[in-house]
């Protein structure tokens, strides 16, 4: 796909006032995702935060599906919802997350954080809208995110990074094990 065709596609895109069904769905799911994400970072109940994170991640998986990135979507569900969140919950429970509100869930940096995040949001949205308000994604045609396509590109063009990543995973595995080991000698086996 050369830039010319992209521009050509962008030239005759429908307006924002006549959204397609996919767009409507995307926006609705996006709103839900955003809401869940906001709840994740604002709720005072720690475990609820993790559960809202599940919703947000799930919503993102749906967005991937809507963007025809099917494989990514399922990986998202598998890794994030199935493992990462479970790990997070696991960690929360190990650190004795209480039931109910934790009054000290937010630190004193809260208003600074609001300021920084708000400014960043305004800036980013402004820039992004300014840059891409007339850009159109053509979702028709060949599906972009089939496992075949993804696998092909991954193992044909991205093999070296992939292998490097496997080394990284191994290192992370070893690191996590080392970190989690009790350091007080080998006398206490488990």
């Amino acid at each position, binding site marked *: 796909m050369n830039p010319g065709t992209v521009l050509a596609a962008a030239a005759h895109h429908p307006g924002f006032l006549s959204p397609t069904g996919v767009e409507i769905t995307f926006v609705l799911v996006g709103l839900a995702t955003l809401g869940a994400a906001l709840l994740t970072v604002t709720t005072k109940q720690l475990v609820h935060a993790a559960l809202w994170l599940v919703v947000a991640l799930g919503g993102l998986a749906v967005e991937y599906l809507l963007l025809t990135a099917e494989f990514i979507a399922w990986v998202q569900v598998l890794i994030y919802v199935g493992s990462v969140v479970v790990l997070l919950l696991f960690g929360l429970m190990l*650190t004795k997350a209480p039931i109910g509100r934790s009054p000290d869930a937010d630190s004193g940096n809260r208003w600074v954080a609001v300021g920084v995040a708000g400014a960043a949001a305004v800036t980013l949205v402004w820039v992004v809208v300014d840059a891409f308000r007339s850009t159109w994604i053509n979702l028709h045609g060949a599906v*972009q995110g089939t496992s075949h396509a993804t696998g092909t590109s991954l193992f044909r063009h991205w093999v070296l990074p992939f292998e490097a990543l496997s080394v990284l995973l191994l290192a992370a595995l070893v690191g996590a094990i080392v970190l989690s080991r009790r350091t007080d000698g080998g006398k206490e086996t488990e």
Partner: protein
Amino acid sequence: MHLAYPAVLAALLFCVGVYGVLARRNAILVLMSVELMLNAVNLNLVAFDVWLRDTLHAGQALTLFTITIAAAEIGLGLAIVLLVYRNRGSSDIDRLTALADPAGPRGDGTGRPGAGEDPDGPGTTAGDEKAEATA
């Protein structure tokens, strides 16, 4: 579909993650916020990959890598948090300020005698007890 939709959503999600990283006390909540930020990036990658119809599928490949790294990060991060919790009895980020320049005359010296000590003195033993109870 307009590219603006996923792009704006990604930007907003990213900022929500920023807020979470900056405002949350609990280290695990901070990790969650980091996940949100990573996901925002992923969404952007996917959206632009789909828009550009990249033959290399760089966006999606990178997304996969990101997800992998996120998984590794969460594993290591949790291991660290649990270790800290075991040693300190707390996973509050703003109490983990052992690297702060200590106030008072002790900080005037060239050495850093306060760095190695636990800033919340009596809390150490309580933390150890908790850690043992947890283990």
